[in-house]
């Protein structure tokens, strides 16, 4: 009744339709107990760990023995000191601003006194359109899904999947990431969304708020994931547009995602009343 060509075309159309339906369903239920994901993570991650350790060793040998030995060591120490001082400076600035506001009306104090676990980065997302990393700590170290991941310079992302000894972290520059944020100066609120490049977009900031290039963006704490006051990045570019209620603001994150080697996973943080 139908020619071979017609049957083939109909078959291809049906296959494409089934494919699209399957992808649409799987995109809605991405994290629902995909045990296969954890199995693959537990199998692949140890090899990633070995390769990453080998590369770091080779880099260290190159840095410390083929270039100026003492200069490299001093550089490492200075970088660690600088990271500590940047973190302290941000904390003090945030404390200073919160003291100026009428804090006694709200009567609460935020304190990041929770436990943190140090983890090394062992691998990255294979796709350029998604930005995740694999770290070498998992359930056996007390890590669970939803925990925030930070470095002294700023926030990095959130744990989205855990194996026994390895976990996957979705970075704030991932296209599916969204962090509730504040502009540090005027406390304007918005959502920092990743766009798969090295930048983020701060959305839903009402246009009546004055935002300037260089303004610091911090976590608001309202998303229940990140503690309040952690640095996210700074404003790089603002697009006004001719209409619309909101600014379109481009953020450069403080974390340099191409160079992160160690991270802190915050296992708990307390909000004290």
């Amino acid at each position, binding site marked *: 009744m139908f020619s071979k060509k017609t049957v083939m075309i109909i078959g291809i159309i049906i296959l494409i339709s089934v494919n699209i339906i399957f992808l649409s369903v799987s995109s809605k239920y991405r994290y629902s107990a995909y045990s296969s994901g954890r199995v693959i993570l537990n199998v692949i991650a140890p090899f990633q760990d070995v390769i990453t350790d080998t*590369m770091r060793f080779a880099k260290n040998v190159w840095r410390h023995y083929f270039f100026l030995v003492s200069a490299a060591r001093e550089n490492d120490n200075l970088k660690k000191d600088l990271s500590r001082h940047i973190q302290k400076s941000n904390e003090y600035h945030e404390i200073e601003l919160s003291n100026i506001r009428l804090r006694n009306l709200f009567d609460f104090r935020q304190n990041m006194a929770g436990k943190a676990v140090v983890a090394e980065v062992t691998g990255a997302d294979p796709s*350029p*359109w998604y930005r995740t990393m694999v770290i070498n700590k998992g359930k056996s170290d007390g890590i669970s899904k939803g925990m925030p991941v930070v470095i002294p310079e700023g926030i990095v992302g959130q744990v989205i999947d855990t194996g026994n000894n390895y976990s996957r972290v979705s970075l704030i520059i991932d296209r599916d990431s969204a962090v509730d944020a504040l502009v540090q100066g005027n406390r304007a609120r918005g959502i920092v969304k990743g766009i798969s490049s090295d930048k983020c977009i701060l959305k839903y900031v009402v246009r009546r708020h004055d935002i300037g290039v260089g303004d610091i963006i911090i976590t608001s704490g309202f998303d229940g994931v990140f503690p309040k006051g952690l640095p996210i990045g700074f404003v790089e570019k603002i697009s006004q547009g001719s209409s619309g209620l909101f600014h379109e603001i481009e953020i450069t994150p403080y974390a340099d995602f191409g160079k992160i080697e160690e991270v802190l996973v915050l296992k708990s943080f307390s909000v004290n009343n």
Partner: protein
Amino acid sequence: MNYLSYILSCLVLILIQTTVIHDLPLFNGFYDLLIVVVIFLGLYRNLRESLPVILLAGFIMDNLYNGPFGLYMTVYLWLFACIRWSSVYFNVRSILFLAFIVPAGVLFENIIFLGSFAMLNSGSFHHSGIYSVVAKQIIWAMITGPALIMLLNFSHSTWSRWFNMKISV
């Protein structure tokens, strides 16, 4: 034994893609290396040998990345089908064909990904970086694609010959 060598090739390329390449700023924006394997299998190997390897490679990639499950399997299977169809009409041994087919495969993968973002409305869709990401991948594919396919072909042929020799002895 052929299956084992293909699977090992896939695993090595996945590890390189998720560790070595990400650590080297020079290769920032490199394309998906498994496309080379899919094209190699589509051009030089039969369906019985190729299909399980492609399904396994797609399955592993789908579990390693952060997007909709099944997208990599979709890309690899449709790319494989297109390669098999094109090999009927073109000379697959020609360097010119190889120089074209790898960037075409990379472009095909990116079109499927971008189409899925638009259709499934998943995550933020920002236009600014798209062209540079795709362009970098295509340029890398043009430079390294043919060489990688020839290297895969040579190494797997050598391996098959060596293994058959050992068995016959």
